């Protein structure tokens, strides 16, 4: 076991957190409505979908892979769970379960193609991204699914702590982050993911079944997209066939901003939450300031390059 000192984040991995603090500090000076509990609860609600997709994406990026299909699989899950509930009058729990099965199934297909056929994840998920998009459009006939049973949108409801309204979906997201953080940090199967990302060949030689680890990662990621789909449905109150198009790259952005290395094996899942929050804080803060949304895109782009450059430079420094 490493000592508690070794478990503390290094200065480098504090970078994203510092960026978030600086952004928050800046916006609190610019807008008096920014620094309120209600506003922070709101930002958390606004990032919960991307935040959950980013958990799955983090797992895959930790193995030195990437999942371009994440947003589209999420959209498919949302459409499937809402449409089966409506068409067959299924109990929401069963409908949601079917949605999860579909997204996890996509994860399984991605995983099998990566491990058995040995295709690069970029190519596999480029393909499944298109397939998931097309299936979403075909199944929904490109129509938004409305008038959902109340049980499907439960997680969009709020409870209050003092004056602040907090959405149940936010709690789900935070719990998922806590769970995945502990799992990655403290369990053997969690550590195996890092090992596979660092050096798959060496990992295989030590007797760890690398294929099984990868397969598990892709299926779990698919499951995360299913949960994200449920959060999206809860938040908007509809099954939206055009969802996922911006979330697709937003999730990768969040992971990269959070300091997880695109080269695999390095990163903390909590960083992805910070990354998602950075994007959410800019969107919220700039609206409060009355600045065009294009600036948010500009700033996000700059931050992404800074984050990857930092990772690259720190790797070189370590050698």
């Amino acid at each position, binding site marked *: 076991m490493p000592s508690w000192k070794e478990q503390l984040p290094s200065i480098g991995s504090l970078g994203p957190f510092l960026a978030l603090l600086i952004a928050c500090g800046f916006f609190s000076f610019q807008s008096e409505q920014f620094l309120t509990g209600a506003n922070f609860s709101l930002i958390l609600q606004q990032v919960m979908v991307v935040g959950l997709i980013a958990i799955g994406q983090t797992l895959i990026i930790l193995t030195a892979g990437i999942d371009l299909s994440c947003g589209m699989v999420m959209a498919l899950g949302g459409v499937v769970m809402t449409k089966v509930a409506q068409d067959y009058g299924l109990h929401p729990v069963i409908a949601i379960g079917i949605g999860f099965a579909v997204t996890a199934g996509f994860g399984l297909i991605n995983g099998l193609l990566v491990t058995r056929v040995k295709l690069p994840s970029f190519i596999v998920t480029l393909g499944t991204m298109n397939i998931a998009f097309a299936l979403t459009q075909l199944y929904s006939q*490109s*129509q938004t699914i*409305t008038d959902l049973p109340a049980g499907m949108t439960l997680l969009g409801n709020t409870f209050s702590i003092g004056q602040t309204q907090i959405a149940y979906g936010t709690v789900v997201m935070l719990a998922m982050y806590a769970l995945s953080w502990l799992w990655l940090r403290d369990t053997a199967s969690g550590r195996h993911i890092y090992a596979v990302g660092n050096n798959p060949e060496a990992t295989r030689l030590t007797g760890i079944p690398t294929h099984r680890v990868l397969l598990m990662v892709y299926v779990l990621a698919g499951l995360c997209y299913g949960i994200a789909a449920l959060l999206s449905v809860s938040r*908007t109150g509809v099954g939206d066939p055009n969802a996922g*198009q911006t979330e697709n790259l937003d999730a990768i952005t969040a992971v990269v901003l959070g300091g997880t290395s695109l080269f695999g094996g390095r990163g903390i899942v909590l960083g992805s939450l910070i990354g998602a929050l950075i994007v959410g804080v800019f969107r919220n803060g700039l*609206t409060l300031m009355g600045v065009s*949304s294009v600036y948010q895109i500009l700033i996000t782009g700059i931050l992404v390059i800074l984050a990857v450059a930092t990772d690259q430079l720190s790797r070189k420094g370590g050698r």
Partner: protein
Amino acid sequence: MQQSRIHLAIATLATAIALPAFSAEPIIGLITKTETNPFFVKMKEGASAEAKAKGAKLLSAAGRTDGDNAGQVTAIENMIAAGAKTILITPSDSKAIVPSIKKAREKGVLVIALDSPTEPANATDALFATDNYKAGVLIGNYAKASMAGKPAKIATLDLFPGHPVGAQRHNGFLAGFGLKSLDAKSNELAKPAEVVCMADSFGDQAKGQTAMENCLQKNPDINLVYTINEPAAAGAFNALKKAGKEKGVLVVSVDGGCQGIKDVVGGKIAATSQQYPLRMAAMGVAAGVEYAKTGKKPAGYTDTGVTLIAAKPVTGVDSKDTKTGLDLCWGNK
């Protein structure tokens, strides 16, 4: 034997070459922004019904996403290759598509823009579209009358920066409300003092909700919300409802899709300006067939109409009820 085979080959070849020339069916191409938006689905329906009625052959294609210019360029090339005499196009990128349209017109193809103009507008032979500024003015008038002199604190949930349709609807709305605004040609968004929050919704429900939530943070007293379209309005209503403010706030919108009109019936949206994609497409196909038969080209801008749909009429503003709106709407009824 050998000779008869050659004869047969020549005959077959001649028939193959001659067939398109003898075919009485003029070919008309329809290129929309996407295959999936209900607005364009309806447009395609209108075009194929009219083509069937007029004995024309309709080819259709689309970009993959809104803004996919390359996809539309490919579609134009393919349609010229397929022998289309008329191309109806909803430009995804009003400027970038112009060179491809120019090439098509140089080959004698009639090109009509549907729904949104190219820049410059005379890059196409004609434009059949909604008057988006007028659509904005109608809901502005309605909002003014509904507010009955109450001071307005307005949030506008716009499309995205630099989009002419977004600017026209926004500025039309403010002009209709009697505020200082810009004219129909402007691509800028006017921002008089009464507008306390402006945010981009990208015409999307989830982003509309986020935008409205942020606006309510900025100014909790907002009592009038203009939205670029009904998905954005539904998102805004969600945000208002979660903040417990859905009662005192007036939401107005533009588009007239079936889901949007249902939201007017359900009280989420007070009024919306309805446009008619089916009519745009039908008129475009009719003009294409006319051109194939007589060589006569349409020119300039044709207004395809816009109607104010409101659940509760207000005095002094002409509106139609939601039943009319549902009869004429596009999307799943």
